[in-house]
């Protein structure tokens, strides 16, 4: 027994010594063995990529990574001066380029839109090759478009095929819709005239190498091992993928689309916990962390002055949704009646005026937030209505409107109308610090004018299901907008078709304006319609638009040449370089 007890102590000492030694050892090798680190960029991400396959990949991470592995028919860039999307082939540009993207990455040499806008013909380059040496041909596109359109594969991008011949009759007629007279000619045919920018956008889906995928049955498509070994032609290729841990891309030395990536390796490391991602950025264990919360900026930069916070936007906004219609009556009989509390545009305007949106921005987002008037982003400059003056924070005016609408203070101080109290529950989803912060301010603001607003936080899945089924009267959520304006899903009057019209807002003029804007064959001709659209939405306040958010990303100081853009943080990642570690202060 004696030896037993005394044996434990030396063992413990030995273990501790070994661990300390290993810790010290790692410390030195970390700085001396800078070689590997100097050639690897490490990006921390919340979750793993799902499929490295452009047909079925659905997460943002997957698209970011697929975009580096697979070649694109065209290169697209976001013109920050106008807010319009530009498309480029090797020899032709849709609009004058504002720099950033390189046309050398495009597979198309040039294109021609037919005079009747019912077909577009691409001429492909003949010097593009898949990594296995086979040329990229027009047949690859036709083959892949069939996959995009196959219901068994359920591609999240199938709406890109919505204008192709046959799509109006529920199934695309691929033999007529896509023609490949030879290996370098690719023709898309539409059932109706399509504006050129939309044709370019919708026909430039990423191809797969047909020779590798042609024997995979559609029902086996998602489980095919080829998804784990993508063969592309872009600046990077997959080097190693340890699922749920890390995904390493290596510069593709053979690539001419546009060229091999500058940084030898890019490691996308999965770190699910936010605090840990921050800690890793602070200790230089990772180089990029996306979506850093504004409250963490100062401590982050104090602890590691090398870190740069970059922001992009504006694509994301938060809003308070008010059910415009009486949901209970709608579910029961399909009848559309105004909501007893929020049915009137006047009341909704008063609610917006009663909420101190500036206070939420100053308290949480600071310079990374801007007041939001409607769902057309100020970044889409060509369509944004600058003449709209935001509803100012004015509780006296809000109270006056409510009085005019018949809402008078009851004995307990809470507003009442026809025996009904102005009292409701504001729902939001769990785990969003920004919305929690905002909801408390909103509650206080509304209390000040005699409205009883209780807060309830729901698990995200539950919250979104309730929202989709139009079961909530008031809620706080957010939208991330696309770079093409298409708001009909969110405001369309046909509530069965417009599945994202959670508020039940209906205004025939909005439907009309959206249709008119879509019909314009020149995108900028739609401007007057969008200006009017914003005036109406601002007047009707179907929801209280709170603020636009600039997304904030933390970058290690050793990254050079990065240009982040509204279309993505990793917009020109193949051009980035890493400064050797010896030149960075620890």
């Amino acid at each position, binding site marked *: 027994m004696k030896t037993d007890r005394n044996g434990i102590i030396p063992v413990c000492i030995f273990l501790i010594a070994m661990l300390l030694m290993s810790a010290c050892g*790692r410390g030195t090798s970390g700085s001396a063995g800078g070689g*590997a680190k100097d050639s690897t960029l490490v990006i921390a991400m919340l979750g793993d990529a799902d499929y490295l396959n452009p047909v079925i990949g659905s997460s943002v991470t997957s698209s970011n990574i697929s975009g580096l592995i697979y070649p694109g028919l065209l290169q697209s860039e976001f013109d920050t001066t106008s807010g319009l999307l530009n498309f480029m082939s090797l020899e032709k540009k849709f609009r004058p380029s504002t720099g950033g993207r390189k046309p050398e990455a495009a597979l198309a040499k040039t294109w021609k839109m037919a005079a009747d806008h019912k077909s577009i013909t691409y001429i492909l380059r003949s010097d593009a090759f898949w990594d296995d040496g086979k040329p990229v041909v027009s047949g690859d596109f036709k083959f892949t478009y069939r996959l995009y359109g196959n219901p068994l594969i359920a591609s999240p991008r199938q*709406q890109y095929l919505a204008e192709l011949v046959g799509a109006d009759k529920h199934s695309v007629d691929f033999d007529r819709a896509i023609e490949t007279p030879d290996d370098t000619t690719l023709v898309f045919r539409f059932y109706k005239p399509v504006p050129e920018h939309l044709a370019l956008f919708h026909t430039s889906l990423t191809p797969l190498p047909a020779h590798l995928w042609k024997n995979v049955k559609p029902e086996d498509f998602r489980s095919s091992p080829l998804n784990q070994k993508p063969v592309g032609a872009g600046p990077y290729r997959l080097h190693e993928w340890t699922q749920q841990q890390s995904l390493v891309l290596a510069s593709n030395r053979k690539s001419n689309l546009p060229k091999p990536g500058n940084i030898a390796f890019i490691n996308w490391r999965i770190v699910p916990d936010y605090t840990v991602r921050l*800690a890793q950025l602070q*200790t230089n264990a990772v180089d990029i962390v996306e979506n850093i919360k504004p409250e963490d900026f100062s401590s982050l930069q104090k602890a590691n002055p090398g870190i740069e916070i970059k922001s992009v936007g504006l694509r994301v906004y938060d809003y308070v949704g008010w059910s415009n219609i009486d949901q209970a009556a709608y579910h029961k009989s399909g009848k559309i009646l105004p909501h007893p509390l929020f049915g009137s545009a006047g009341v909704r305007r008063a609610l917006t005026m009663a909420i101190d949106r500036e206070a939420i921005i100053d308290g949480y987002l600071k310079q990374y937030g801007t007041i939001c008037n409607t769902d057309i982003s100020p970044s889409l400059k060509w369509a944004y209505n600058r003449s709209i003056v935001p509803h100012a924070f004015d509780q006296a005016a809000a109270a006056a409107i409510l009085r005019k609408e018949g809402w008078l203070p009851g004995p307990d101080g809470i507003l009442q109308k026809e025996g009904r109290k102005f009292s409701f529950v504001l729902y939001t989803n769990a785990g969003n610090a920004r919305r929690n912060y905002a909801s408390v301010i909103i509650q206080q603001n509304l209390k000040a004018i005699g409205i009883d607003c209780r807060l309830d936080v729901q698990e995200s899945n539950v919250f979104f299901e309730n929202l989709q089924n139009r079961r909530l009267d008031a809620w706080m959520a957010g939208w991330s907008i696309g770079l093409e304006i298409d708001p009909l899903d969110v405001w369309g009057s046909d509530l069965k078709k417009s599945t994202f019209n959670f508020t039940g807002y209906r205004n025939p003029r909005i439907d009309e304006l959206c249709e008119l804007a879509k019909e314009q064959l020149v995108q900028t001709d739609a401007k007057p319609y969008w200006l009017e659209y914003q005036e109406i939405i601002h007047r009707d306040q179907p929801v209280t638009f709170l603020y636009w958010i600039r997304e904030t990303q933390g970058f290690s100081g050793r990254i050079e040449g990065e240009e982040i853009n509204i279309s993505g943080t990793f917009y020109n990642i193949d051009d980035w370089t890493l400064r050797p570690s010896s030149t960075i202060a620890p």
Partner: protein
Amino acid sequence: MLIYILKRLLLSVPLIFGVLTLTFFIIRLAPGDPAAFFIQPGISPNVAEQIREQYGLNDPLPVQYVKWLGNVLQGDFGRSFSRAQQPVFEVIAAALPITVTIAALTLAANFTFGIIIGIISAVRQNTFTDRFLTVTALFFYSMPEFWFALMMIIVFALKLQWFPASGLNEIGAESFGLPGFFIDRVWHLVLPVTVLSINGAAGIARYVRGSMLEVVRQDYIRTARAKGLPEKVVIFRHALRNALLPVITLMGSSLPFIFSGALFIEVIFAFPGMGRVTVEAIFARDYPLIIANTFISGTLIVLGNLVADVLYAVADPRIRL
């Protein structure tokens, strides 16, 4: 004893099966939709419907259950919804060894430290050492693990930078060679195992102390002392053996706690283990993966309890199974 073990094993089959059936219905009745991700503007509404069709979620619930039952009886738990259609057992095969490593290390650390602290407390009852150990143990015992983990990361990974904050290995650890790789792995495991075991060890220490104090008052201990045996022999040979009996049952019942503790730890430290798989599967409403995880953890817990009962009989000859 063999017959007893066999009987218990046979009984556990319907038990686990019942658990799986319950899980099958509960997760389907819970709000949320595995195809919810595909319901967003810009994605055709057909996609969610096609995805549901692929997953077989459009069938009536009893039909889904019969189909599922048929597959499970053939040993097929299906493919994961959220992890690129990987067979669920492949997902688990990758995750289980990590969790088992953490659990085994934690269990060992739990009992080693718990027993040592418990004995010291009991032997030095009512001294400063005892009170100090008791207060410290209670302090750690009442601390939520996830918060403790974050504090450890802030102190040891962020401020002192002694240990890494996440992952199983350093980037490029493959090039360190086998001993280097191993040391790197151990170095990454220090913080999570410490967090998980401190809490458990504190609890076990309380048990050991209590049970030691009870045993020390027994007549046979007085007899042993009266015989003139050295104190060490009295404590370790006569008292400890008897005092450890209730602790052995703890071993079986602490398995579920270690597994549930691993849920937080794996998410916080970014270990791709069972805990993280389970948490992510639940949030994604990945039905096949949730059920397979329940199957694995349920089986381990039932086995853990069985082992505890058997150990009990091994340690105490008075107990006959």
